[in-house]
């Protein structure tokens, strides 16, 4: 279980995340939604221990993510990050695998690259990869250690419809295997399809956290999201 309690984060005078608390049950797919700059990425960075919150706490199965042992079971895919461009896809994924205690073989790396659909390009330098291929590689490194908890920051961004469908299928499969998935997105159609739980953040404040169907009230998620955000804007 991921337990985020009272996250607060400011950059200068600007409060980016304001008292956000979330409880993400083990085995669920949780979609964290919000407009650009709402505080999704900062919340995720704090949840995986890359950024320290000003106040508040997070535990994953009772352990803080800053604890190196708890990172053994975390996978994180950052949003639009650059890679080590002069490495090949296989070298990069092997490097990521080497950072875990668990020993992994080249076959394991190749299997992951096959799963995300970039196996054929495994020996090419990353600099020649398209945006979609880099996105797939980012996804691959997030699952290299067979993590129990997978944090994905805009995983479907930059992918063509076919690529999105493939990644969504992988997310569903991973979830069926019992993994917990926490992902940030502003593509609400996909979120609705994937997530049983959602959280909505607006200007750093949590507007909603709970069941997706309950939030939608029979309407499509995108429509309901716009209604709620607009209500908030005019309040």
């Amino acid at each position: 279980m991921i337990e985020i309690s009272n996250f607060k984060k400011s950059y200068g005078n600007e409060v980016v995340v304001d008292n956000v608390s979330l409880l993400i049950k083990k085995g669920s797919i949780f979609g964290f939604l919000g407009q650009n700059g709402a505080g999704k990425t900062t919340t995720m960075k704090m949840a995986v221990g890359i950024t320290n919150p000003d106040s508040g706490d997070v535990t994953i199965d009772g352990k803080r993510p800053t604890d190196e042992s708890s990172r053994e079971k975390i996978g994180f895919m950052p949003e639009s990050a650059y890679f080590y461009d002069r490495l090949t896809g296989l070298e990069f994924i092997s490097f990521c695998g080497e950072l875990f205690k668990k020993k992994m073989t080249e076959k394991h790396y190749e299997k992951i690259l096959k799963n995300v659909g970039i196996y054929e390009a495994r020996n090419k330098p990353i600099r020649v990869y398209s945006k979609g291929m880099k996105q797939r590689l980012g996804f691959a490194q997030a699952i290299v250690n067979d993590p129990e908890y997978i944090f994905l920051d805009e995983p479907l961004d930059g992918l063509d419809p076919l690529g999105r469908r493939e990644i969504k299928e992988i997310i569903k499969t991973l979830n069926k295997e019992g993994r917990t998935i926490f992902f940030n997105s502003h593509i609400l159609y996909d979120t609705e399809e994937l997530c049983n739980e959602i959280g909505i953040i607006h200007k750093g404040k949590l507007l909603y956290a709970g069941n997706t169907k309950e939030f939608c009230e029979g309407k499509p998620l995108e429509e309901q999201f716009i209604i709620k955000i607009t209500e908030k804007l005019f309040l």
Partner: protein
Amino acid sequence: MKNILAISKITFKEAIRDKILYAILAFGILFGLLNLFLAKLALGDMVMIKSFGLAGIYIFGIVITIFLGASIIYKEIEKKTLYFVLSKPVSRSNIIVGKFFGLFAAVAFTTLLMALIYLAVIAYEGGGFDYLGLLAISFQMLEEAFFIAILIFFSSFSAPLTSTISALSLLFIGHLLDVVIKSAEQIGGVLHQIFMFLSVILPNLEKFNLRNLVVHNLSISFETALIVLGYALLYIILLLFCGTLLFKKREL
């Protein structure tokens, strides 16, 4: 240790595949080969040939170090590449130390390539195997390691241009320190005490300069070599430690 090794390996691979590095290295090697031409002009004067060759290796070694090291940490923060690493069971000190070793391996590799050309030229010109030249190059590699630690230290909290200027200033001061202290000794008074204090804090990079000695076939004692090695290690550890502390405080 495993993580440090993995980060070093990847840093080395990234550095060694840089096309701009090849260009600088090619100039370095060309400079070394120019020694053959200089040998003709200098009528085989070994002092001249060795001075020219060792100076070339030093200058190109430093240029390569600056090129590879100036933005090493900063670039990874800006491009978010570090997020991939930091979300794994890796500490920030692992990253600093891993980057240091990877970068040093790349710089040492290029320096050794230039050294091979130098040794071949000296042998071709009838100077035999230049053991002392190799010793001077080893000390120079120690200085490069020192310089990488300085660059990583600055890069852990400042932008590449600031890192480069700060590191170059330290390089310049480090080589002038001996001369400045001698002048301050002659002047005496408060100025002397101030410079003596600064000499404790600032690195004295002339300790690594054996070039002027070895071209005249002079060497240093084993004890002196050990002291210089200890001096370099102490400074490098201190710089990497401070770099880690600053990097830990850095907001990502």
